[in-house]
């Protein structure tokens, strides 16, 4: 077996070898005087180095570090004064998400209000509810005309409604009849009652 490398000898002195390798080294050392001498040299070098380092560390007292802790405390307080919300504020990665969400909400609100450029009050709508369908109609000249004809047709075609107007409390249908002008109302009632209502 060839002589041991310095790396092996150093590791052997430092007890850094695996059990198997250590056994091989010991076996070789038992038969090789040259390596034994070399090992002793290394043992002495490493021992002296350790002694030197230990003395060197002891010779240099470590400066106190309490002032560093105090400095951190001061910095920490200063940061809290300068940035009171820093600890509670969102992480940087969340900011773009929040900004985007705000932009979307703002756009939706703008769109919603832009749809209401001409303010509409509930009085501008008329709800048609014939018992089967419910429909909201925006009132304008055309729709009022349609509505009048719708109700006239309803009155003529719907027996129940006609009976209500004839025999019930027709005032209940005032909302519907108000779209008829005087002449139309007169004609309707005359037709229904067979006489003019004064």
């Amino acid at each position: 077996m060839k002589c041991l490398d310095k790396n092996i000898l150093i590791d052997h002195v430092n007890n850094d070898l695996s059990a198997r390798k250590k056994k091989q080294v010991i076996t070789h050392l038992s038969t090789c005087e040259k390596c034994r001498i070399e090992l002793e040299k290394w043992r002495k070098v490493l021992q002296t180095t350790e002694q030197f380092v230990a003395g060197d560390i002891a010779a240099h007292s470590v400066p106190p570090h309490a002032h560093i802790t105090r400095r951190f405390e001061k910095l920490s307080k200063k940061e809290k004064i300068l940035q009171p919300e820093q600890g509670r504020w969102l992480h940087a990665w969340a900011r773009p998400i929040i900004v985007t969400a705000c932009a979307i909400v703002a756009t939706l609100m703008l769109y919603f209000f832009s749809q209401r450029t001409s303010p509409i009050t509930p009085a501008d709508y008329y709800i048609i509810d014939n018992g089967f369908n419910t429909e909201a109609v925006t009132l304008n000249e055309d729709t009022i005309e349609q509505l009048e004809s719708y109700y006239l047709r309803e009155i003529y075609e719907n027996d129940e409604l006609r009976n209500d107007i004839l025999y019930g409390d027709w005032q209940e249908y005032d909302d519907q009849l108000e779209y008829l002008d005087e002449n139309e109302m007169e004609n309707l009632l005359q037709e229904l009652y067979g006489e003019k209502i004064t």
Partner: protein
Amino acid sequence: METGRLEQLIEENYQNIFLLSLKMLKNREDAEDATQDIFLKVYENISSFRHEAKFTTWIYRIALNHIYYMNTQRLKMYNNQPNKHEIRTEHNEDPADVLVEKELFNALEKIIDGLSPKQKEVFIMRYYNQLPFKDIAKILKKSLGTVKSNYFFAMQKIKNELEQNQLLEFQE
């Protein structure tokens, strides 16, 4: 990180970082300043610590970067005379052995100073900071083999110098 935990980490690592700075910079005043600055950097960058490495490994990386930065600045400042404020080591030993040992230790100090930067940083972290080789490898982001190789070369250099100058009595 809580201030209490940070204080504990400073307590645990302060001596080693100071010794690393002292041996690399070779000036106590500079080493004290460097140690303070290193821990200030640790404090300032604590939020960027990703827990990918051990906290100690992270501190050593900051320390070595800062020490090399300081060395560069100092070289510029002293116009390539880094040993202007060379530290002297004093050992309290018995008078009979003082001369021999002082000579040996002074020689060792010079030999260690003369190591290449890579050998020196491994040597300091191994002997002064008592770090295992695998931790040194992580700090330096090098393989275990490379780190051990640097260490072996450093030790070979120390042995050669001691032998050549007959500073150690070796049995032949």
